[in-house]
């Protein structure tokens, strides 16, 4: 068995310590600063990244929201989402389109989902994303 001198031991310790410090400084892939209307639950925050959210009337006068999300883990990620639609006063509309919808993303995969507002006079939304299957 090889024995280390005191100098070699200290040098090794320094190398390991520096590597550990640098690794600790690397920030994991996280959600970019999000629109406050997009609420990602803590139970999925480190695993799913919201890449893009668009809202447009599209072919109708009803707003459609499209969100693109990415699974940053190495396993299949089940999640659920719902969109609450609100009027000018912030009062939400009760509608089946605000039910939880379930989906999953393959490892490192990207997927998009769309939800259309139940009424033409909605002005705003809140998008909730949680872990779930």
């Amino acid at each position, binding site marked *: 068995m090889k024995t280390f001198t005191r100098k070699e031991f200290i040098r090794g310790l320094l190398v390991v310590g520096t590597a550990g410090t640098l690794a600790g400084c690397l920030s994991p892939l996280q959600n970019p600063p999000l629109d406050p209307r997009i609420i990602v639950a803590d139970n999925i925050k480190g695993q799913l990244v919201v890449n893009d959210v668009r809202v447009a009337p*599209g*072919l*109708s*006068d*009803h707003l*459609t929201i499209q969100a693109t999300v990415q699974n940053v883990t190495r396993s299949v990620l089940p999640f659920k989402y719902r969109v609450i639609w609100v009027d000018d006063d912030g009062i939400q*509309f009760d*509608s*089946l*389109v*605000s*039910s*939880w*919808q*379930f989906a999953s993303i393959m490892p490192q995969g990207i997927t998009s989902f*769309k*939800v*259309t*507002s*139940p*009424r*033409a*006079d909605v002005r705003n939304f809140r998008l909730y994303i949680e872990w779930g299957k």
Partner: protein
Amino acid sequence: MKTQMFLIAGLVALTALTGCRTPTTNIDEMNDQAGAIAGFDYRDINRSLAKAVNSMLSVGRLQRTDGGRWLVNVMPIKDDTTSRGRDTGALSGALHTSLCEELTNSGKCLIFNPDVARYAQTSATPQLVLIGEITSRTLFMDNHDRQIEYNLNLHLIETATGVEIWQKRVFIGKRADRNAIY
């Protein structure tokens, strides 16, 4: 001594059995944590109709150039699932009412009620008719577990011309144990 032993054993068994009972709880529709079931439950009704309504509203087929509202005759949803024997009418009734509710709330439609219309003083003819059915198909997987495929098929037809202006098939699939009841 023997009698006492029997009594203690009986008491222990009774306690254990009582402990196994599932306490009754109310379902919180918005945060239901229970697992999926093989049948078509309220969550499936909501999910399938949400997909259908999303499709109908996003493509803009319900927009009228004059800004008016369509008079729609929503036909009863035909229940062609294998569970219809036990809860006759419940599934199709829930689908029908929820669909009418969403159409009314959209601000684009008024619902025509044919049962009441026959007594009406002035006649109104629906411009659109919505026809729907829900079907189920059970397949057996290699390990003999079941794959249950539910399909909600909806068709929106213009009554004057017979032109189908929108249609949607919503699929809800389930895999369950071979002994699962649904």
